[in-house]
């Protein structure tokens, strides 16, 4: 018996509803959704808005972090059912925490070059109760804030010039000898008038961490000690005169270690003879320098200071009003991803020392093995003590006032 027209209509509605249900289910489920016809899919159910995590990071780890971000995104990370989108921006380490403090930047996650800036941001934001309810970072909260990579400050010179200047060993007076070289000597003193004056470069201690660390190391070397640096030391007229003379003879104070090292390689030996940068920054450019100027002129030699100062690249999720809970969660996921073994091993290939100490520096393929001829050392000399905040402040004030007014 043929169905009545009324039943026909009912069946049609039921059929239509069932089809719609299947369609919606397919669109909501991410796996099936991907198969649907995109324009139709996006019109009916717009894709979930991504959770955007703004990351400010210091430039010297750019190559590693770019690859790490690609790998992170490849895992299709999500929080609360929404995809995570990372927006990265380079910044000098000091500029970074100052921008957070004065409200010109509102990142969710920051990574300066060292814990030093995190300590400063923690203290300074605690003092700004008008702007922040609590300190925006907490060094002791390791779930949200911890070191991810390590690399010491070193001196890098063009190998042929380094051989003439110090050979393999500048000995324990390295910073003192550097002072002598830039203030009293020129390349004529070493039989090479064609190389002109001795050009040393480092970053500006007020703008970039490596320059600040170099200044701290040089100050320690002047007093021939590795701890207990005091305000009295920094205010010592003999030291101030000695350092000011050095500062006036520095060829350039760069803004950021990464871009400064790029400049060193781009210009070649004519512009800088010797520079203070991070070990990893130097490693990143060893091959570029040779590719650009050949083995003879493009080889780089790395010198380790008599005492070490480490840049440890903390990543810290900010505890600020502009960081939504899902953004903080997404930032933490990214931080955890960075300290996973895979990313730590990747860091080693970029010349950083992993914080995961189960990864040996002389693993196969490690640049530490590949570039031993450039003077790389696996074991570092003891670290200097990080001076108290007020001593660091005095040092920076002295620099600002007297060295490059």
């Amino acid at each position, binding site marked *: 018996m043929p169905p009545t027209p009324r039943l026909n209509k009912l069946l049609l509605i039921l059929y239509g509803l069932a089809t719609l249900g299947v369609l919606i289910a397919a669109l909501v489920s991410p796996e099936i959704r991907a198969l649907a016809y995109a324009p139709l899919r996006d019109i009916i159910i717009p894709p979930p808005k991504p959770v955007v995590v703004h990351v400010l990071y210091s430039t010297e780890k750019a190559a590693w972090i770019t690859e790490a971000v690609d790998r992170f995104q490849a895992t299709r990370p999500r929080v609360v059912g929404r995809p995570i989108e990372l927006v990265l921006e380079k910044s000098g380490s000091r500029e970074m925490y100052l921008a957070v403090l004065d409200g010109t930047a509102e990142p969710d996650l920051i990574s300066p070059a060292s814990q030093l800036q995190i300590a400063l941001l923690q203290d300074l934001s605690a003092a700004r109760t008008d702007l922040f309810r609590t300190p925006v970072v907490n060094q002791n909260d390791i779930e949200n804030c911890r070191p991810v990579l390590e690399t010491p400050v070193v001196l890098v010179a063009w190998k042929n010039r380094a051989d003439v200047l110090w050979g393999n060993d500048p000995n324990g007076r390295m910073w003192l000898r550097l002072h002598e070289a830039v203030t009293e000597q020129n390349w004529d003193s070493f039989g090479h008038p*064609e190389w*002109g*004056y001795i050009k040393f470069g480092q970053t500006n201690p007020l703008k970039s961490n490596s320059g600040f660390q170099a200044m701290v190391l040089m100050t320690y070397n002047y007093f021939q000690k590795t701890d207990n640096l005091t305000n009295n030391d920094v205010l010592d007229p003999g030291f101030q005169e000695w350092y000011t003379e050095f500062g006036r003879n520095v060829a350039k104070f760069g803004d950021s270690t990464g*871009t400064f090292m790029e400049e060193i390689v781009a210009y070649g030996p*004519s512009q800088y003879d010797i520079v203070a940068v991070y070990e990893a920054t130097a490693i990143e450019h060893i091959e*570029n320098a040779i590719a650009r100027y050949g083995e003879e002129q493009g080889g780089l030699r790395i010198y380790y200071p008599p005492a070490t100062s480490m840049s440890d690249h903390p990543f810290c999720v900010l505890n600020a009003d502009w960081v939504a809970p899902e953004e903080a969660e997404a930032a933490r996921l990214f931080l955890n991803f960075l300290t996973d073994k895979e990313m730590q091993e990747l860091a080693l290939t970029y010349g950083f020392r992993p914080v995961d100490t189960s990864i040996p520096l002389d693993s196969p393929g490690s640049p530490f093995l590949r570039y031993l001829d450039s003077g790389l050392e696996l074991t570092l000399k003891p670290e200097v003590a990080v001076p108290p905040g007020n001593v660091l402040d005095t040092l920076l004030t002295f620099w600002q006032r007297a060295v490059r007014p």
Partner: protein
Amino acid sequence: MKKHLQHLSLMLLLVMLTSACQGGLPIIGGNSVVVPMYYGSEKEEWLVPLVEAFNAQKNKTEAGSTIVIEATPIGSIESGDKIVAEEIKPVVWSPASSAYVPVTNENWRRIHAEDLVVGTPNDLVLSPVVIAMWRPMAEALGWPDKTLGWSDIADMAVSEEGWAAFGYPEWGDFKLGHTHPNFSNSGIISVIAEAYAGAGKQRGLTLEDLAQDRVIEFMTAVESSIIHYGESTGFFANRMFDLGPSYLSAAVMYENLVAAQETKRLSGEASQLPVVAIYPKEGTFWSNHPYIILNAPWVTDEQREAAEMFEAFLLDKPQQLKAIEYGFRPADPTIPLGAPLDEQHGVDPLQPQTVLEVPDGEVVVAIQELWRSQAKKPVDLMVVVDVSGSMEGEKISSARASLVEFIELLDDRDRLEVILFSNQLTTLSELSALGEKRADVMRRVSGIIEGGDTRLYDAVQFAYDELRAKGDPDHIRAIVVLSDGADTASKLSLDQLMVQVGNLSEGGKSTKIFTIAFGRDASVDILKRIAESTGGRQYDGDTKTISDVYAAIATFF
């Protein structure tokens, strides 16, 4: 049913429209954001195609405006001064080097109490400043076994014998060229390098150093071999490569221009002798083409954002690789240096071995002043002005006013003669130093009146003969001719004139004629022929542009 379908289609259309708008699709024509950029002309060949390619991509700012880059080439020193005077208002400024940036910043700070250039801008491309020299001449001086520098140039410049001392009397005197230090980066770089070499220093040049006799003597010695100055390094390079070794023995320019010329020569496009880059042994400077987004009140946030996107595009690898083709060294350190940056193209990528320190702003300004007041080679200049009847009205008044401005640009040590021509040739002021008579000449020029025919050829010949008779061979010798029409009354024919003035027996040191075709009725072709036969240049001018034309001519002296 039909009605329902209509409703459904309408709803679907609305949904699609809303969805599309949320996604920022340009269904409705969008706005555009224009980014004016003023740049050092040396990188024109690399930059212009990239500007076109970027604009064609129709890149958008976050707010959805289409980015349009408008790039204008300009002398690097001139552009800094014009920005401070707010005569030009770029968003992006990319001079040939950072050397003059501190001076511009200082001048800006005096008015605005803040820096115009903040932080350290990124470099776009690099090229060292070199002395470009014809290869046989460099070899005659002992290159490449012997390293050459500014001191060798100074020795050559003051030598009575010139090239004869090296066994090549047929090459005549040593003839050097560099651009005008008040307009062009390579010009200011040249005089800074001369001051360093004179002081025997490579860094820390002070005002006290500049007061030493030996510095002034050294600079004056080098400058004595100058054939003339000029506005742009690119123009200078073309002049040298077009007119050959008799015109210029060597010129200060950038390595990329040498590599580009050698590329042309090796491909058969140019037929001159090979040219090589000499990297001065005392040290040199880098031309680093900084990309500066100005911290100026006229720059909007959106223009800044757009400018940053264009910067990222220029620094991206494909664009950086392209720079090598034009002889630049990429600012991207991961790109190795390859042809044409090689020996075959007259270039040594392992040079320079050292640099000179960029002096403080006040020292740079003092060097400019020292050059202008003492070291600069003076000019013996004949200004020949058409005052025939056709010049009546606005023409004669603008010619008078612009000539007064031109005379203001000349220095006290320059010598000037002013000749007026119509049916008559009238000497308004005899050839003598301008310092003593400037006010008088300017007053008399202001009173010029028009009337009569045009004896152009006779006037040029007269000026030429005057200069030959009275001109100092140790000065730059030049004639500037302004004319608004064809010759109507000369006794001399054009061919007879050309035989006389086109005599380049003195090579680059011969008398140069600069001609201005004033207005629509001027004989452009004839004026061009006269100018170019002497190594000078022809300009088109009218009542609105005549001041700029005179200012451009003034850069040669």
